[in-house]
C-alpha cells in the first residue's frame, strides 16, 4: 500500500474516532437530561411547593427542603462572597506581585477543587462537634467555604482584566487608592464580579456531601438556624436511596428543580460575561 493511502486511512480513522467521541459524550449527557425531564416532570405538582416532606406512603412536597436550600445558600453566599471578593481585590490591586498573593492563589486553586466532603468534615469538627448538634448555620458555613474560592478566583481574574490606564487616570485626578478600586475598577469589572457570584451560587446549590453532616436534614418546616435544616440535595439523597416509590418520585422532582436552577444560573452568568466581552 502506498504511503499516501496509509496516511489517508489513518487520518480518516482518527477523525472518525474524534467524531465518535463527541457523539458518545453528548449522548450520555443528553440521556441524563432526558431521564431527568421524563422522571421529574411526572411528579411536578403544586403540592411540591406547598407541602413539607412526607413520611412514606402519604402526600407531600418539598417546600421545607426548598426553603432550607435557599436559606443556607443565601447565608453561605453572604458570608463567602464578600470574603472572596476582598481577598481577590487584595491580590489584584494591592499585592499583585507579593509572596502572599502567590501563596493564596495556589491554596485557593487547591480549595477550588478539593473534595467537598472534606470541607464537610472540617465544619463538623469546627462547629457541629463543639455545638453538640447539627444546625442550619453550620451547613451555611460549609457552603460559604465552597463559595470563597470561586468568587476569589473570578474577582482576581476580572480585576486583572481592567486596564491599568483607567486606574492611572483616576489616580491622576487625585482619587485615593480605595476610591480608584471602588469607583473605577469594581465598576469596570462589574459584570465579571456578578458572574463569579452566580457561578458560586450554581456550584453550592447542588452540593450534598458537605451538608450531610453539618445541616443534616429536617422533616418539618424549619427556619431555625440553630436546628437541623432540610435541603434539596440531602432530601434527594435520602429519598432516592429509600425503598419507597413515592419518595423516589419526589427525589426525581427535586433533582429536576435543582438542575433547572443550576442551568439557569450558569446560562445567566455566561450571558453576562458574553455581553461584557462584546462591549469591550
Amino acid at each position, binding site marked *: 500500500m502506498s504511503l499516501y493511502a496509509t496516511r489517508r486511512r*489513518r487520518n480518516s480513522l*482518527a477523525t472518525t474516532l474524534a467524531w465518535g467521541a463527541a457523539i458518545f459524550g*453528548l449522548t450520555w449527557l443528553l440521556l*441524563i437530561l432526558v431521564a431527568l425531564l421524563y422522571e421529574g416532570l411526572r411528579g411536578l405538582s403544586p403540592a411540591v411547593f406547598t407541602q413539607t416532606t412526607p413520611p412514606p406512603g402519604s402526600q407531600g412536597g418539598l417546600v421545607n427542603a426548598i426553603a432550607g436550600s435557599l436559606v443556607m445558600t443565601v447565608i453561605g453566599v453572604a458570608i463567602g462572597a464578600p470574603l472572596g471578593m476582598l481577598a481577590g481585590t487584595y491580590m489584584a490591586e494591592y499585592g499583585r506581585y507579593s509572596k502572599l498573593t502567590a501563596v493564596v492563589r495556589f491554596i485557593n486553586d487547591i480549595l477550588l477543587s*478539593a473534595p467537598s466532603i*472534606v470541607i464537610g468534615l472540617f465544619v463538623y469538627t469546627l462547629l457541629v462537634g463543639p455545638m453538640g448538634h447539627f444546625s442550619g448555620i453550620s451547613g451555611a458555613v460549609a457552603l460559604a467555604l465552597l463559595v470563597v474560592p470561586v468568587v476569589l478566583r473570578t474577582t482576581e481574574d476580572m480585576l486583572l482584566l481592567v486596564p491599568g490606564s483607567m486606574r492611572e487616570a483616576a489616580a491622576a485626578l487625585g482619587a485615593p487608592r*480605595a476610591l480608584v478600586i471602588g469607583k473605577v475598577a469594581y465598576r469596570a469589572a462589574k459584570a465579571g464580579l456578578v458572574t463569579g457570584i452566580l457561578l458560586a451560587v450554581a456550584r453550592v446549590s447542588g452540593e*450534598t456531601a458537605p451538608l450531610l453532616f453539618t445541616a443534616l436534614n429536617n422533616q418539618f418546616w424549619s427556619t431555625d438556624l440553630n436546628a437541623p435544616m432540610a435541603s434539596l*440535595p440531602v432530601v434527594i439523597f435520602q429519598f432516592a436511596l429509600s425503598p419507597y416509590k413515592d419518595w423516589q418520585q419526589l427525589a426525581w422532582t427535586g433533582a429536576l428543580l435543582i438542575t433547572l436552577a443550576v442551568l439557569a444560573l450558569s446560562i445567566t452568568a455566561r450571558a453576562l460575561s458574553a455581553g461584557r466581552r462584546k462591549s469591550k
Partner: protein
Amino acid sequence: MSELAMESAVPRPAVVDRTKALSSIALLDRIFFQVTRAAAVIVLVILSGVIVSLVHGSLPAIKAFGPGFLISQAWNPVTENFGALPAIFGTIVTSLVAMLIAVPVGIGIATFLTELCPHALRRPIGVAIELLAGIPSIIYGIWGLFVFAPFIQTHVQPGLISLFGDVPVLSSIFAGPPYGIGMLTAGFILAIMVLPFIASISRDVFETVPPVLKEAAIGVGCTTWELMRYVVLPYTRVGVIGGIMLGLGRALGETMAVTFVIGNAHKISPSLFAPGTTISATIANEFTEAVGDVYTSALIELGLILFVITFIVLAIARYMLMRIERKSA
C-alpha cells in the same frame, strides 16, 4: 512669617475641612487595604484550618491503629477495628476506570471541537459541554442508580461475563453475579462526570497553539491526525496532562454519584462487577451513624487520606497548567 501670611490669605475653615477630609480618606484607604489583606490571610488560615482539624480529628484513630490503618482490610464497627485499604482500593480503581474512559474520549472531543466541528456548531457544543460540567453530582447519582445500573445489569454485564468467561485474567475481572451496581458502574459514571472537564481544558490548551505552527504543518501537507499527533499534542502535552490530573482529582474526591452506585461493601474483590466502596462514599454513608470516638476518628482519618491524595494530584495539575500558561503568555 510666610506660613502666617498663607494662613491668613486662605479662609480658615476650608483649610481645616480639607485636612480633615484628606485624613479621613487616608484612613479609609488604610482600612480598605488592611481589610482586603486580612481577607487574603483568612483564606490561607482556612486551608491550614482544614488540615489541622483533620489531623486533630484523626488522632484517636492514628493512636489506635498506627500506620497499619493504611493496609488493614478490617472494617468492624462492633469491635471498633478499622482499616482503610478497601476504601483506598475502591477510590483508586474507580478513578482509574474513569480515566481510562474519559481521557481518550475527552481528548477526542477537544480535537473535534478545535479541528473538525463545523464553525457554526463550535460554540453551542462547547457551551453545552461546559454547562453539563456544572450539573450537581447528586443528579449523576440518581440517574446512575435508577437508569444506568439496571441497564448495565440486564444488557451489559451478562454479555461481558459470557464473553470473557474463558479468558484467563479477564474472567476474574468480569466475574460474579451482575448486580448492576459496583466498581465498573461507579467508574463509568465518574467518567461521564469528569469528561466535560477534560474536554474543555484540553480544548482551551489546544487553542493556545500558535496558528503559525498549525499553518506550517498544514502547509507541508499534514493530515488532521498528523497535525494533532505531531504538532498540537506535543506542544500542549503539559497542559493536557494538567487537565487530566484535574479530572483525576475530581474523580478521586467525588462523593454523591459514587455513593449511589458503588454498593458500599468493605472488601477488595478482583471483579469490577463486585460492589466496593470509596473513601468518600464510606464517609458519606457512615459518618452520621458513627458511634464512639474511634469510629468517627477512623472516618476523619479516611478524609485526611483523601485530602492528602487529592492535594498531591491537584498540586501537580496546577503546576503543569501554570507552566503552559506561562509559555502562552
